[in-house]
């Protein structure tokens, strides 16, 4: 038996599934939402529905997009032969800030995390592989986070992509290990991109 009324428990459960929200925070947010006026609550609900209806993922690179394709994929000035692989759409913002990259992107929508049951099948890996040949991709830059999941993902992708005959590079060390890419300043990330090295893929 739950200690809460069923609708409150449902809300706590849903909030608890969001990233970075533990059971205690879910409880706190749920009680905050309970106290909202009906108008405020509807505005929040509407914003969630709007974003689901109007914004989807780019069918090519899985970045957020307002149409079928995101702005980068639709832009003819972007170099299609170089693809920068990132974990999340917000990492694209970090790479763009450097002004060093003019190719296209591929968003994995996560990183390999075996303990969480997240392997290549749960990520947009097959979709990346499927782009190489038709889009004439010559270089894949692995721009996953410099932490253990990001490194594991880079090692896996490098092993997978090598036999395809594409040049596989990894952003250079110098990025603080354990940190998130989105917090890297543009100078550091720019240097890491410029100093990227070819991986041997074993």
């Amino acid at each position, binding site marked *: 038996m739950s200690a809460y009324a069923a609708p409150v428990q449902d809300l706590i459960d849903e909030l608890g599934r969001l990233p*970075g929200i533990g059971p205690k925070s879910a409880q706190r947010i749920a009680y905050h939402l309970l106290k909202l006026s009906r108008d405020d609550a509807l505005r929040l609900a509407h914003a969630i529905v709007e974003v689901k209806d109007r914004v989807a993922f780019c069918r090519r690179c899985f970045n957020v997009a307002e149409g079928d394709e995101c702005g980068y994929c639709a832009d003819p000035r972007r170099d299609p032969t170089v693809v920068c692989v990132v974990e999340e759409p917000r990492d694209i913002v970090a790479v763009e800030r450097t002004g060093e990259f003019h190719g296209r992107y591929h968003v994995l929508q996560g990183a390999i995390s*075996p*303990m969480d049951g997240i*392997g*290549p*099948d749960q990520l947009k890996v097959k979709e990346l592989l499927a782009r190489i040949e038709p889009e004439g991709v010559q270089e894949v830059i692995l721009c996953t986070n410099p932490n253990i999941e990001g490194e594991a993902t880079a090692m896996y992708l490098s092993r997978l992509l090598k036999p395809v005959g594409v040049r596989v590079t990894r952003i250079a060390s110098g990025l603080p290990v*354990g*940190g998130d890419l989105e917090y890297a300043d543009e100078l550091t990330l720019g240097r890491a991109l410029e100093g990227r090295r070819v991986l041997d893929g074993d």
Partner: protein
Amino acid sequence: MSLYRDEGVVLRTWKLGEADRIVVIFTKGHGKVRAVAKGVRKTRSKFGARLEPTSHVALQFYEGRELDIVTQAESIDQYPALREDFDRLGRAVTMLEAVDQLAQDREPNPAVLRMLVGALATLAADDSPLVVPAFFLKLLALEGFRPEVDTCVACGAEVDLVAFDIDSGGVLCRACRRGQALTPDALALLQRVLGGGLAAALREPPSAATHDVDVLATRAMEHHLERRLRSVSVMDHA
């Protein structure tokens, strides 16, 4: 408010809020501890790499009401070899997952920590196929669930042992056999791992027998935990 120091291995982490992480550490003196590492996802964080899974660290905690807070972290060993090899990292994570499932919050078990540190160091030094299965079997023994590998669990026979049954907790002779078939080579490896011949067994190159022992030890561990190890199926498909 109080501070305490301990050492341990980081089992797993997850993101908390904008730049923090919750870190689950298996410590020597306090068992499994969940603590907040503030700001570690910012690039200028002083802890960064020291608080990633597999790291062996010396820590200072501030005791909080719900979660403790990591106030200092010094690296004891980072096992860089594990982080440069996808398969080895996957196997290290499998051991971390088993310890995470087995360990209780705030219940110290220094023997398990010692074994985990030993197994990580062994795996980092040399990619032996038996590190993980040996770790699982030894862990089961430590928990009081050592599989019987010397005599038939049904009749006590010492020869013609041809099967292993997880529910019965050990090997069986031809007359009593149930469970899964066991080759003489795999039986010999099991006996060496659990019978004082571990160091030599760890030097075995990969073979059908090491693979059998791996599968069997993983199943025995999962049976004991009463759940599947997620990292095993992820790594099997990768």
